[in-house]
């Protein structure tokens, strides 16, 4: 499991510059010697290896005839279908509609999640009121909620956005709340002694302290937004990626389903990557195992 990635060493350079030779090099792990226990430096584009490999396996399996094309169409079939869908503008349309819904839902959901997390994280009464119901909401499958949602919010756009927001707000709430609760008490004491006001406390201690948690929550929130589409776009939708998939499912159009899955996968990878980028940018102060 141990991998020893050489420290980014100086490139071969004229003798005068050999001063930059790394002096302690992580050594291959031997039973006796000291070994490096952390994961080492990030591999460049390492994140792409898995997905590319997965794709390669799929392509190879299809080409070798190991995969039943009725069950799992070959990548080129899927690509062709995607091409058709794009050519007649359908895929873009679906994506655009879905993206609008997802973004709106994300917006409201994140706002609600953070707000409720603050209410519940900073006061015991708030916690008593908010936390339980959130746990209940979280435990109820959204599929089962659809009739109730229709009842309360109709079948229009607002119902869809609300449902997405409901899906989004849960991970944001839980993670932010957990992040809040995990802030070292020593910092709270510090804030008290420098006489931070409550808002300043929230802004300067609570929010940055809970930021890692919040960002982890965001990683779930973005996918939750896309996932919620699969449910809400079953209701009175005429476009959207979820609608496209639902339709394909009732018809059993495996290739369209796969186009949808690939799109979902890409959306997931991209939005997760975005959140991670923000994570790296805003959490520069962390000196953690990730290095």
């Amino acid at each position, binding site marked *: 499991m141990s991998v020893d990635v050489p420290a980014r060493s100086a490139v071969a350079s004229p003798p005068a510059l050999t001063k930059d030779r790394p002096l302690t090099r992580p050594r291959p792990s031997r039973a006796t010697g000291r070994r490096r226990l952390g994961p080492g430096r990030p591999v460049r584009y390492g994140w792409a290896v898995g997905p590319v490999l997965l794709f390669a396996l799929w392509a190879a399996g299809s080409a070798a005839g190991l995969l039943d094309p009725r069950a799992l169409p070959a990548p080129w079939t899927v690509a062709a279908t995607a091409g058709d869908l794009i050519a007649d503008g359908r895929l873009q349309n679906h994506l655009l509609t879905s993206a609008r819904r997802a973004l709106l839902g994300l917006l409201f959901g994140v706002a609600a999640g953070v707000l409720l997390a603050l209410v519940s994280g900073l006061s015991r009464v708030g916690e008593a009121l908010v936390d339980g119901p959130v746990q209940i909401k979280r435990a109820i499958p959204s599929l089962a909620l659809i009739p109730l949602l229709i009842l309360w919010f109709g079948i229009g756009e607002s119902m869809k956005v609300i449902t997405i927001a409901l899906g989004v707000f849960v991970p944001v709430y839980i993670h932010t709340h957990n992040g809040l609760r995990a802030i070292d008490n020593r910092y709270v004491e*510090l*804030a008290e*002694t*420098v006489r931070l006001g409550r808002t300043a406390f929230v802004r300067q*201690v609570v929010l940055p302290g809970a930021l890692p948690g919040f960002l982890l929550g965001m990683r779930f929130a973005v996918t939750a937004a896309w996932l919620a589409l699969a449910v809400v776009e079953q209701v009175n939708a005429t476009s959207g990626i979820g609608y496209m998939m639902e339709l394909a499912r009732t018809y059993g159009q495996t290739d369209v389903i796969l186009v949808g899955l690939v799109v979902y996968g890409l959306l997931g990878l991209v939005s997760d990557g975005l959140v991670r980028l923000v994570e790296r940018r805003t959490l*520069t102060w962390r*000196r953690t195992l990730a290095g």
Partner: protein
Amino acid sequence: MASHPGRLSPAVVRIEDLVRSFDGRRVLDGLRLTIHDGEFVALLGRSGSGKSTLLRALARLDHDVRGDGLLTAPDNVSVVFQDARLLPWKRLLENVVLGLDTPDAQERGRAALAEVGLAGRERAWPVELSGGEQQRVSLARSLVREPRLLLADEPFGALDALTRIRMHALLRTLCARHRPAVLLVTHDVDEAIALADRVVVLEEGRIAADLTVDLPGAHRTGGPDHARLRARLLAHLGVDLTGHEPDGGSGDETADGPRGEYEPAHERVRDTEEIPA
């Protein structure tokens, strides 16, 4: 050098009968202490004797202290914690000016950082600092404020001799300017004598000694009076300088030991005492 001199300035801190226990173990047990306005008190005591616990109680951070006496302390307290306690997600300057909302906060913060020798590092992250640098930032953070009571828990512990001397000077300047009451925890008896008006020793949950330092400024670091005070305090801490009479250190030693220097290897440890567990 009598303890508890009658003073006229009002009391900033008044503690009577303070009790604090952890899991049944009484760390502070009926402690009494009064600190007057503008007074500089040094607090000595063994490791684990409850110094930090006392400071936390005074800063009103500890809501589990009990007793039937009273505990008054001003709201406007500034604390230098034993750990530097910098917010890891704020750069140095932001850490220093935390909670300061005067318009010149930034400038003052910059000046304070410069005073502790960290000019130019305003935008560094706390993790990028050496131990002593972190401690200095924490000091700078309390220097930019104007507290009525400054509680400092070993603020110079991780500093080299030169930097320590500079920090002493800095603290003196601050005290001269705003005259806050100060309670300074230190392990360095010389430091305590050099800086404080009064030195108290915490032992078994109470103030076991309370000595006024009324040496004139020039004698704060030498001379027989100084040596006597020093020996007495060290004796309270269990370090016997005399080398001859294993004296409990109860008052009027004469000029003692060969030279009364701080001589770690020669100093005798009273064998009857155990390090507090």
